[in-house]
Every structure is written in structure tokens, then in C-alpha cells.
């Protein structure tokens, strides 16, 4: 009994309009690695926020390591020995990496902050974790993935009894994930209780000792990990909803002719010379390790970055968009990887978000034609299968997966010939992922060229006809047909074995 770190009974929590948790029980023991699963909006983040003192429950009892009563603030949670990596990045961009790691706990000597100790200890932690980041550099200078690593370092450095990781790997690729999983195993061996939220099933299989599945705010099942198969878990998560199996093109499908091509394209500093073509009617994957420059490459294709050199052609004609609007007019469009900050205006309505990139088609002389707009919006909602109360409600009310569908819908309404999707499935649950794959395939069948970037190599085999390997600033290879397999892609992106 003294092994229990956390015990929660009958936890309920409602937000305006939604019940996030309904009478949930949860407990965690020392050394346990608990995978917390559920589709978008199931209540996973809410549950761990209550555990960490970030949110207060409407009802229910909490017992943290023998300490009774709900935690009333994050500070109390930290004091009680709970360290959390939250789903949303919580980095202070204007501060150094070292300061971020010790945020609010800066080492002091005689009442004044001891900068030497601060930097030294931060360097030690980063080195111990095997993260190659300079502790003195400003957090605004490092990449999104490195920021994620800094947050992990922050949580681990607290030496907590309970470590909560809410989708820590959603912006990481394989190498870093390996490092993190190793650290988790080490900590659990040392008796730390760990809660791990992820939509990546293979990670869970590798480290979790037990799983808890939530659905629509209710506790569905908790079991040792060996007792449930992957398909069991998916069924528990989705309930009645089913996932289609594969979204690959049917055998014999032939992609159309090249629509967009690039020759020796340089997008500095990461991409030095990339040559490739995108064909109508195909789903083309671009695989590469963290920071290989996939995002930059896509940005160059839509005029958000100016290539330093190289040529592009679109439908045979020279193509050099001076900005996003020019690319949009030419028929090339992309959805950004950071949905919350770049993808959508969440305080506006779903309807407006859907037509935001195509106002011209639903207005005349700058005046909105509400009939046309409603028609477009309703069509999109039907096509994407967005679940909503009414089209006018704020996008913020939707779950992550549904928000992502709206972002894609916005791009589609701009009627592009080439659609670039940068990490469209990041942080999206299995069910929604399947729907997004299906949508991609559907679009390709209609003749669009779909370019799909993901940090999760497992995703490519689900939907891609062809995958380009971006490595060392160049397209070093191409994988097609049945060769599109995770292991092949892993080898190719890491460089052990080059495909022909």
C-alpha cells in the first residue's frame, strides 16, 4: 500500500460546454510506467493537469503520496513531487536554456542568483541526458524539437517522485525518442512513477508496464500492458468507431505527370541542393530526421522562404512565387506544422476558418455572400467529417483532430493543385489519423498532388505511394511501392543503408 504514489477517486471536471472527466478513478505505484491513452479530447491532459495541481477538479478525492486533498496550484504539485511535461510547450523564449531548465528554481547563493552554478548544473543535466544543446544560448534560438528536449530536461531535473509526460515525442523524431525512452526506463527502475501520454503505439509497447484507456471523459479500462493487444486498445479508445485499414493506392494505380518540380533547390541553411518532382494524383511523403529541413523545403515551395539558388517549375512553366499569396494564386498551398500558433484563428468560428484562405470565392467586391459561404462551409464539414455543434462556434471548442481537419479544409477550399501537409497528424489520435489518411488518398484520387511530411516514419506506409528521403540537405533517395516500410525508411534517413 505504501507503494501507491497517486490515488484518485471519482474525479469529475467540466469546462463550459463539455464534461472533460466523469467520475474517473486512477492510481499509480512506484516504478510503474503507465500509458494513458484515448483519442483527442478524451480527457487525458485534463486528468494529468488535475494531478499536477494545474486544474482543480469539480469533485473527487486525490491522494498524492499519502498527502490528502487536491493540489491547488502547480507550485503545490511541484512541492508534492510531481514533475510534468505539458502538451503545450512552456518555454520562455527570451531566457537562456539553462534558466528555462531551472525555471522558478534558480540556484542561489547569499540571496542572489548564482549564474555559474546555474549554467554548470544545466550543462550537466543536458550532458547526462545526451541532449546536445548549449545551456547559455537563448531559448528563442533553438528549434521546436530542442525546446521539447529542454522541457524534458526541466522535468527530469526536478528529481520528482512522479513524472508526467504529455505527448513528449509529438515533435521529436526517432533518435531523440530513443534517448527519452531509455531515460524513462532508468527512472522507473529507480522507483519513479511515470505517466506517459502518446498517440504512438510502438513507444507504448516498449516502455509501458500498464495502460489506462479513457474515452469521452470516462475511465474505460486499466490493465497490465501484456494483457491487451494493440487492436484491443484501439477498440477501447474508439468504442464503436472503426478505422479503415490501409489508405495506399490500389495496385496498378498510376500517378499522373509531374506537376511541380525542383532542381538543385537550396533553402539555406539546411537544404543545400534538392531535386525532385511531385506528380498529380499521388501522395508523396518526405522523410528526414529532426531538423533535416523538411519544413523549410515546403516553405520554399509556397513562397514563404526565398530559395538561395535552384529552379522550380509548375506545370512546365518557371515557378518562383514571391510570397504565399503568389503561390496560392498559382495553386500551391500548405498547412503549417504548428496548428495552434500558425494553423488557425481559434477564437473565430469554424465557418470562418474554413474560408479564410478563399474569401474571394465566397465574396463579391469584398462583401461576403452568406449563401455561398454557408454552402462552402457545409460542403467542407461533410467532406471532412468534422464533428461540431454549429458551424459558427469557435474553433477552440473542437478537439485537436477536428481542428486539424478544419485546417486542411481551409487549404482545400483554396482549390490548390498541389497540397503540402506539414505534420498534419501531429498530436492527433488514431481515429482522426485514419480519417486524415483517407482524406489524403481521396484528394489524390481526385487528381491533386498531396505532399505529406511527418516525423513519425510509421505513418508513411499507411498512405504514401512514394517517399523522398531528405538528408544532408539533399534528396538522397526515393522509396516506392512495397518498399515503403518503416525499417527501410529508418535506414535511409539515418544513412546506414541507402536505397537504390
Amino acid at each position, binding site marked *: 500500500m505504501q507503494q501507491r504514489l497517486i490515488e484518485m477517486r471519482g474525479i469529475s471536471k467540466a469546462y*463550459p460546454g463539455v464534461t472533460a472527466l466523469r467520475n474517473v478513478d486512477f492510481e499509480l505505484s512506484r516504478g510503474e510506467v503507465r500509458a494513458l491513452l484515448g483519442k483527442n479530447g478524451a480527457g487525458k491532459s485534463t486528468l494529468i493537469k488535475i494531478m499536477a495541481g494545474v486544474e482543480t477538479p469539480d469533485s473527487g478525492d486525490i491522494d498524492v503520496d499519502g498527502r490528502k486533498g487536491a493540489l491547488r496550484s502547480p507550485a503545490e504539485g511541484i512541492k508534492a513531487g510531481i514533475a510534468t511535461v505539458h502538451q503545450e510547450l512552456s518555454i520562455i523564449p527570451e531566457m537562456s536554456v539553462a534558466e528555462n531548465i531551472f525555471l522558478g528554481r534558480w540556484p542561489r547563493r547569499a540571496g542572489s542568483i548564482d549564474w555559474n552554478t546555474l549554467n554548470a548544473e544545466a550543462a550537466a543535466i543536458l550532458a547526462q541526458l545526451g541532449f546536445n544543446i548549449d545551456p547559455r544560448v537563448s531559448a528563442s534560438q533553438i528549434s521546436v524539437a530542442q525546446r521539447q528536449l529542454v522541457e524534458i530536461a526541466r522535468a527530469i531535473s526536478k528529481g520528482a517522485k512522479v513524472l508526467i509526460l504529455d505527448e513528449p515525442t509529438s515533435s521529436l523524431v526517432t533518435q531523440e525518442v530513443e534517448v527519452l525512452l531509455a531515460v524513462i526506463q532508468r527512472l522507473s527502475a529507480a522507483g519513479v512513477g511515470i505517466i506517459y501520454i502518446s498517440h504512438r503505439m510502438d513507444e507504448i509497447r516498449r516502455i509501458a508496464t500498464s495502460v489506462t484507456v479513457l474515452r469521452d471523459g470516462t475511465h474505460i479500462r486499466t490493465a497490465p500492458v501484456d494483457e491487451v493487444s494493440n487492436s484491443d486498445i484501439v477498440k477501447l479508445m474508439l468504442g464503436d468507431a472503426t478505422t479503415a485499414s490501409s489508405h495506399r493506392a490500389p495496385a496498378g494505380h498510376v500517378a499522373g505527370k509531374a506537376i511541380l518540380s525542383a532542381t538543385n533547390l537550396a533553402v539555406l541553411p539546411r537544404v543545400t541542393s534538392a531535386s525532385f518532382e511531385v506528380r498529380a494524383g499521388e501522395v508523396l511523403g518526405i522523410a528526414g530526421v529532426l531538423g533535416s529541413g523538411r519544413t523549410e523545403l515546403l516553405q520554399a515551395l509556397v513562397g*514563404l522562404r526565398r530559395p538561395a539558388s535552384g529552379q522550380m517549375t509548375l506545370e512546365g512553366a518557371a515557378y518562383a512565387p514571391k510570397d*504565399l*499569396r503568389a503561390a*496560392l494564386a498559382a495553386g500551391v498551398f*500548405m498547412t*503549417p506544422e504548428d496548428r495552434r*500558433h*500558425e*494553423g*488557425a*484563428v*481559434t*477564437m*473565430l468560428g469554424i465557418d*470562418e476558418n474554413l474560408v*479564410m*484562405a478563399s*474569401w*474571394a470565392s465566397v*465574396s463579391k467586391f*469584398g*462583401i*461576403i455572400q*452568406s449563401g455561398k459561404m454557408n454552402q462552402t462551409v457545409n460542403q467542407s464539414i461533410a467532406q471532412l467529417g468534422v464533428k461540431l455543434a454549429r458551424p459558427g462556434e469557435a474553433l477552440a471548442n473542437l478537439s485537436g483532430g477536428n481542428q486539424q481537419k478544419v485546417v486542411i479544409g*481551409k487549404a482545400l477550399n*483554396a482549390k490548390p493543385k498541389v497540397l503540402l501537409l506539414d505534420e498534419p497528424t501531429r498530436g492527433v489520435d488514431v481515429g482522426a489519423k485514419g480519417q486524415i489518411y483517407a482524406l489524403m488518398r481521396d484528394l489524390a484520387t481526385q487528381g491533386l498532388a498531396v505532399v505529406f511530411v511527418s516525423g513519425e516514419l510509421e505513418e508513411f506506409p499507411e498512405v504514401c505511394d512514394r517517399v523522398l528521403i531528405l538528408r544532408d540537405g539533399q534528396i538522397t533517395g526515393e522509396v516506392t511501392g512495397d518498399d515503403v516500410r518503416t525499417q527501410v525508411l529508418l535506414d535511409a534517413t539515418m544513412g546506414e543503408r541507402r536505397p537504390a
Partner: protein
Amino acid sequence: MSSFLSGRANEVGLVVGIVVLYAFLAFMAPNFLTPANQLNILRDAAFVGIIAWGMTLVLISGEIDISVGPHVAFAGVVLAKLAASGVPLPMAVLLVLVLGAFIGTVAGFLRARFEVPSFIVTLSLWLALRGIAQVISNAVPIVIMDFDFQRFGSGALFGIPIPAIIMLVLFVVFTFIATRTVFGRSVYAVGGNAEAARLSGIPVAKVRTIVFAISGVLAALTGILMASRLGSGNSGAATGLEFDIIAAVVVGGTSLFGGRGTMLGTLLGVMFIGALVNGLVLMGVDPFAQGIVRGFVILAAVMINIISIRRVRSR
């Protein structure tokens, strides 16, 4: 119906606030409810309201424009100077409006292109425009010798003061702009999330520039009406007007952080503060104490607004 009300918690709250205020003033301030006084409130409100429509857009887009007070004085002085140097009045009015749009455009351009915070850009204008007005006029009012023109600011049509008519017409126009035009919705998008707007192909820099241009035109228009009412261009006019306007817009529920606000809310905010200022005079409150009352009432109004919106949302 209840969802209609909850979607408009802000406006409903304001209407209740105005009703309470009217009841109080009807009781406490002699002659408050007379038609003459109500029309007078409406006329005064116009000098806040017209610019407030533009300010609502400015705040929704996530910016601020504190230059409007001096801009009003500047526009009046330039108009009077032009008229005094023989430019026909209609022509001078047109020139001042164009100049106002131009100044706003420059401010918006500096914000949009060089990312100078709009508070700083408009603070510079705040200093410069008043200074230019003083230099042009030597701080002495420049008389406009045209009695027809004076009717603009102080006359009435069908009994309703002309500035109030202009304000109400513009209210309709701006409500339309804010809710039914691509530009208007783009303002909300830019204020709600500028990066997402940019990546959706919305011309963010252009939207920002236009928002300031509108604010400039409206300040110039108010300056013209003010000059008409005073019969002269006055470099000392409209001191502190920028704060009256921002206060009215924020009391009306527009967010200072962008993305949220309605013209109706602003109209109610303008009427609320207009009635309050008028009532304080009629009640004979010590003029020095009126600042105190206004400070507290604005704070209370915004606080109640924030709290009530939160309440309704959490239901």
C-alpha cells in the same frame, strides 16, 4: 433565445448598465431626461463615437492608436488654415480627409513594415501632430468665416444634431464592415492570430495599414466637425480624447489584446460614458471630483463586463 443572450452577454450587460444609469440619473439629475438634454448627449457622443468605430477595428486587430486626440486638433487647424488661405471649404474638407488617411497610412505602414509597436508610432504622432498644429496656428484659434459650415457641427436635421446623424450612419456602415466584409473579418483574424492569418494568405500588413488609415480618416472627420462646432481650428482641442475613446471601446467589451469586439458593444459603451459625463455635470458634482467618479465607473464597468462574460461562459 438563451443561447442568443449568452452569445451577447456583453451587450446585454451593457444595456442593463445603461438602464440602471438612466434610472439613477433621471432621479438624481434635474432635466436629465428632457429631449433637449438627450439630443445633447447624442451630439457629444458623436465626437467620441465616430472615432470609436475606427478604434474598435484598431483594437480588434490587436493594435492601439493614441494619436487620435491630437489628430482631431491638427485636422481642425489645417482645415481652418486652408480656408483662411482661400481654399474653398469643400475642397479643404476633402484635403483634410485625404491627409488624415495619409497620416494613418504612414502610421500603419511603420507598424506593419518595421514592426514598431503601434503604441510608440502613435505616441510619436501624438507629440508631433499637436506640435504641428501649434506651430501652424501659433496656438491661436484660426477662425473659419462661414456660417453655413458651422451648422455642420452645431446644427440639426429633423431635430437630430448633424454630428449624431453622421455617427449613426457610420455606425451602420462600420457594423456592416466588421461583420459582412472580407476586410472586416480579416481584421478579426489578424487580431486573433496574425501568424495564422498570414499563412492563410490574408494580407496582414495591408489590413493593419488600412485599419490605421480608417482611424486617421475618422479623426480628420471629427476634427472637421469640431472645427465647425467651434467655428475655428484649435490646436488645444480634444485633449485626452484618445483615452475617452479607448475607455468607451473597452467598456463596450472590445479586447485590448485583439481578436474580439463588436460595434454594437462600442455604441453602448459610448452611450454609457456619454450619459455618465452628462449626468455628472447636471448633478453638480464638484468638477475636480468628476475625474474620480469617471475613473471608478470605467474600472467598475470593465470589471463587471469581464466577470459577467466569464460567468456566462462557465455556465
